[in-house]
């Protein structure tokens, strides 16, 4: 867990990740919780607390990835290693579709990660129980017939539909003559730098 990671290392990893989730690219400025410093190879699988094994993930992605390191490619059923946000290029494995509101996988790794982390979750409960989604193996010891996920949109998709333009937040603060809520300024400034490259996050 992040609590055991030295602060300097956490800050360095957050900077490297541009304060965004490595999977869905949600920015810290819009995330509903402080981003988690994730062990890419989970500690439960022997992953170590080294910079090379750490990245940022949002509460949503982390809660679905859990202790997994691999999942089936829904196109072939072949198990593949999940996306590694530190070592792999996001745009090689994923693409935004539907007006920038949903993510699809382009490669076996991308497709497996989209399915495993519910990157394309829809609000329609029927889609949650599709064969592709329920076929994802859960961590050892967990039942396969888990209850359906609540009828919830994946937040990143919905936030994009709501029309967030994070680049505008700096001017908002200036115009209002208001000091931002503690901790928000850096997030917004970071967002202002990061957002123009959101479609090509790791060039």
């Amino acid at each position, binding site marked *: 867990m992040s*609590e055991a990671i030295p602060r300097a290392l956490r800050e360095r990893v957050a900077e490297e990740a541009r304060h965004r989730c490595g999977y869905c690219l949600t920015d810290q400025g819009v995330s509903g919780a402080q981003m988690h410093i994730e062990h890419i190879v989970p500690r439960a699988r022997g992953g170590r607390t080294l910079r090379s094994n750490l990245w940022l993930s949002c509460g949503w992605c982390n809660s679905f990835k859990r202790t997994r390191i691999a999942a089936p490619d829904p196109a072939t059923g072949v198990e593949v290693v999940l996306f590694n946000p530190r070592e792999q290029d996001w745009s090689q494995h994923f693409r935004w579709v539907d007006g920038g509101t949903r993510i699809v996988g382009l490669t076996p790794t991308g497709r497996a990660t989209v399915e495993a982390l519910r990157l394309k979750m829809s609000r329609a409960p029927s889609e949650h129980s599709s064969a592709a989604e329920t076929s994802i193996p859960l961590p050892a010891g967990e039942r396969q017939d888990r209850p359906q996920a609540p009828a919830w949109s994946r937040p990143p998709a919905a936030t994009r539909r709501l029309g967030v333009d994070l680049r505008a937040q700096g001017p908002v603060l200036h115009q209002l003559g208001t000091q931002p809520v*503690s901790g928000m300024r850096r997030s917004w400034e970071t967002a202002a730098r990061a957002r123009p490259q959101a479609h090509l996050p790791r060039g």
Partner: protein
Amino acid sequence: MIRRAGWAPRAVHQPVEDVIAAILDGVLPALDDVPADMQAELVEMTWLDDVALLAIAGALLSEADRRRLVELSGRDSLSDAERKELDGLRERYGKVTLRKARALALLSVRSGKGSLAQAA
């Protein structure tokens, strides 16, 4: 409003039609994917003042909830009760995130800037 309608397009170098469309987009958000129990709340946020929106934009899941979310997410196996708890935490996280997104979108529109859809 008329003054703003004249000022905003010049400020952002966009056609007035695009600015008005962005404003309407902010007032009438696309509610696809938004849970039914939050749709009215998100629309009603349109009439909150800037201070209230800034407060919402700065909100985060409680630290206790965040820690519990991380803890449950790091376990190899979960009991039925823990799985239900994890679903509840995801839902709380999602609600905070959606409120923040809506607040940021409204602040963005009020500042005379466009929406993400324009920027994309």
